[in-house]
């Protein structure tokens, strides 16, 4: 067993597993990692199963003191800075942390989210069979706070695994994201649909695990203020009465009555959340069939990467 103590935790630092699927009908979104590709790569480093927990680290940063034992870990996702004591390392690397050492993970040149995984079993509370944290309720693994102890059971040290993990090009931020129009594009004027496909939008600071509000051309819906509440998915581009678009993310509300002009394809959501506030993003509209082809290509690329890594 290895025991770590949280010396510092910024906001939005949570335990996450691959997600709590299958409860949308009861008002529960899947939650899970904001960047699912980085999470999957991270867990593959130690051949951890998808239900294994990781620590998702936001721009707020995290410092952990190792108070007992040793454990090999990986930090994957974004261009974060990783330090052990005075040694300055980076994300996309595997190292070993020993008793008495402090691990610091903080924002670097790019990205908003990174994943800390261990060679061992990271203990985290479960809800509905998953340690993914539902942000608004705190149910599941939960948010990390200063002073808290973090336990890794069956912790291993794997000197042979230490070193760099290549960051594939498809795990980088994506300033162009593909989306399928609808399901309520009929409530928008041809000008708004044109603006969506041709104008740049900018990420705002109204950004958390629930969603990300964009700044850009006003996409004012026409006559849609009373549509019956209907299911929302991760990637829904919801437009409120003020014409501002919000992209719904991991902890999204499961239903809502605002019209959704388009839906971002799942392959692009990981790269989208690694953009930062004030970055520009453009939408490229694709057909549902093209979106499916992208999902299959992304699945093949991830599988090939993970298999090669073993």
């Amino acid at each position, binding site marked *: 067993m290895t025991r770590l103590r949280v010396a510092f935790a910024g906001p939005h630092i949570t335990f996450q597993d691959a997600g709590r699927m*299958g409860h949308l009908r009861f008002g529960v979104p899947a939650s899970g990692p904001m960047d699912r590709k980085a999470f999957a790569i991270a867990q593959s480093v130690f051949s951890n199963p998808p239900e294994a927990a990781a620590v998702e680290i936001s721009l707020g940063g995290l410092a952990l003191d190792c108070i007992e034992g040793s454990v090999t870990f990986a930090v994957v996702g974004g261009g974060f800075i990783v330090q052990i004591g005075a040694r300055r390392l980076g994300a996309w690397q595997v190292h070993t942390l020993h008793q008495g050492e402090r691990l610091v993970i903080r924002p670097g040149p790019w990205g908003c989210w990174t994943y800390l995984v261990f060679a061992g079993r990271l203990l985290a509370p479960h809800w509905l069979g998953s340690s993914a944290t539902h942000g608004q309720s705190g149910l599941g693994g939960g948010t990390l706070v200063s002073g808290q102890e973090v336990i890794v059971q069956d912790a291993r040290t794997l000197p042979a695994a230490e070193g760099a993990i290549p960051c594939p090009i498809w795990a980088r931020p994506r300033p162009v994201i593909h989306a399928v129009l609808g399901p309520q594009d009929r409530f928008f004027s041809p000008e708004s649909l044109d603006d969506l496909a041709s104008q740049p939008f900018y990420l705002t600071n109204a950004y958390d695990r629930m969603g990300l509000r964009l700044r850009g051309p006003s996409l004012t819906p026409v006559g849609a203020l009373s549509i019956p509440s209907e299911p929302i*998915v991760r990637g829904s581009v919801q437009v409120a009465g003020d014409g501002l678009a919000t992209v719904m993310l991991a902890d999204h509300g499961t*239903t809502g009555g605002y019209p959704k002009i388009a839906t971002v394809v799942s392959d692009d959501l990981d790269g989208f959340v690694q953009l930062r506030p004030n970055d520009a993003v453009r939408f490229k509209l694709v057909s549902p069939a093209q979106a499916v082809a992208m999902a299959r290509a992304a699945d093949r690329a991830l599988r090939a990467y993970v298999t090669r890594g073993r």
Partner: protein
Amino acid sequence: MALYRPIADHAVLVEFGTAITDDAHAQVLALDQALAANPCKGFREATPAFVNLLVDFDPVQTDHAEVEAHLRRLADHPLTPRTPATWDVPVCYENAPDLAEVARGTGLSPDAVIAAHLAGDYRVYLYGFAPGYAYMGGLPEPLKLDRKTTPVRGVPAGQIIIAGTMCLITTLVMPTGWWIIGRTPTRVLTGDAARPFLFDVGDHIRFHRVSEAAFEALP
């Protein structure tokens, strides 16, 4: 006629109408049940709402066209609908924070508000907003009020809240702009792994009144 709307790479939204009606919701539930009995290839989950059903699938295994064809076949051969369960939910109306305000807003006496609330025939149309928030339609017309202009923070679990034609039981400490007219010991988030959510969509709910003393004595 149902409309099948593709969503991104992984879902189809089946729409049975644009206005909330019993008929549209019955069709949502019928397709939901047929799909549960006979899932399509790559099926991940279905989410019923007022007038539509979201069907989520794994795009590596199937696509929108295949899923839509499967759903159309199911719609052509409707099953006998499941008989919905009916749940009795005790409510204590004493010392409810907004009962007096609801009485003023509706022009009824507090006792008439309680009587009207108890007389409603409620049905779960959908879950939304937060885990376990079951939207129950069937609030009698005289109790129809707009939401408060400003939400109240920190409303605890087990409150009976109303707005528009809907009623629900809070499950978590959350903000709400709905009117709090009572409280119940019934927990929609049961904490029971075998049945974590008390109601299924489509279930009926009847409220019955308990005194504050009886409420305190309930387990």
